[in-house]
């Protein structure tokens, strides 16, 4: 799958986006009131939706990785960028009631506020592009590299040797029940 050509990837990306946008809209997440309602504690739909999506995604990701069909791509642990970014992101989400994906779905569904939010996002992205060369050092200060919760180094791009599957060695024997 990884060696598909550019236009196939783009078409698949587009198809993924259409499904994503439709699901966000049908789930009520293309509405700033749902997101603000989650933040104020009046509406738990965001938590229910995201929690389920993460749980299902995590199981699928483990399954794919064990078969060498995907890789770990944890984003780097840059404390400054992550903490500063999370504070700005949380504040912006409380103010606009959107995030980058839900704003796109909202704009598509006809909400003006989604379009305004997207306009602000594109402007800020341009400012980020202009300032990134100067910010880079600060954002990556004290980086811990790519860290996963398991503490393991990310899986290699190549699948594990075949003998693990066909004839398990002692140290590769299942330690815990498969999930």
């Amino acid at each position, binding site marked *: *799958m*990884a060696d598909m050509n550019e236009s196939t*990837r783009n078409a*698949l*990306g*587009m198809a*993924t*986006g259409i*499904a994503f946008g*439709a*699901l966000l*809209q049908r*789930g009520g*997440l293309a509405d*700033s009131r749902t997101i603000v309602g989650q*933040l*104020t504690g009046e509406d738990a739909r965001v938590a229910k939706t995201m929690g*389920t*999506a993460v749980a*299902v*995604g*995590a199981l*699928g*990701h483990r399954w794919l990785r064990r078969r060498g069909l*995907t890789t*770990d791509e*944890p984003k780097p*642990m840059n404390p400054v960028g*992550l903490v*500063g970014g*999370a*504070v*700005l*992101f*949380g*504040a*912006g*989400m*409380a*103010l606009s*009631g959107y995030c*980058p*994906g839900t704003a*796109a*779905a909202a704009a*598509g*569904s*006809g909400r003006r506020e989604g379009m*305004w*939010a997207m306009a*602000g996002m*594109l*402007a*800020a*992205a*341009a*400012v980020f592009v*202009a300032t*990134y060369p100067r910010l880079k050092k600060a954002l990556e200060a004290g980086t811990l590299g790519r860290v*996963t919760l398991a503490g393991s180094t990310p899986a290699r791009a190549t699948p594990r040797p075949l003998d693990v599957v066909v004839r398990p060695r002692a140290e590769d024997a299942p330690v815990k029940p498969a999930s």
Partner: protein
Amino acid sequence: MSTHRHDSGSGAAIDRGPSPYLIGAAIGLLNICAFAAFRKGIGVSGAYESTAALAARRLAPDAVHVNDYVKARKDPPKFNWESWLVLGTILGGMAAARTLDGNDASRVDDRPGAEPKRLPLASAAGGAMLMFGARMADGCTSGHALSGTAQGAGSSWLFTPLMFGVGSLLARRARGARRRGGEV
């Protein structure tokens, strides 16, 4: 714009649509497809950055220092599958809002008793803040909260609770102020 097909009087009778667990499971399955097809989960905010960089290169390469940016990023910006994904998200939102009685936005926004609409400035300023934050952190609600946490990425498990915590705190304070003052 003003087709109120809803029973406008009763604010309680809002159709909340399908179960959030069902929607969440479907998004999770979709993300699994993305993990397999792209070897990467769904991510959205990166496409805003590359789109902005491409636009800047065309419109004002010197003012935005696009060359320095490309050098620092090491990767020239491209309109790739992630950008197509964002375009698709817009189309998906459009399609869902227009079919299956999908909560047409213009109708819902005009419903009497709905919370006051956000000022365009608030939407744009909020969008700007969160996008700058997302690029600082290298991910947003999709790349970190959805895909990164599913992979057990340490960075995503730091970013996600912190950003929801900060957002919660501020949204609760804003609601308190609104209730006291009656004005946003």
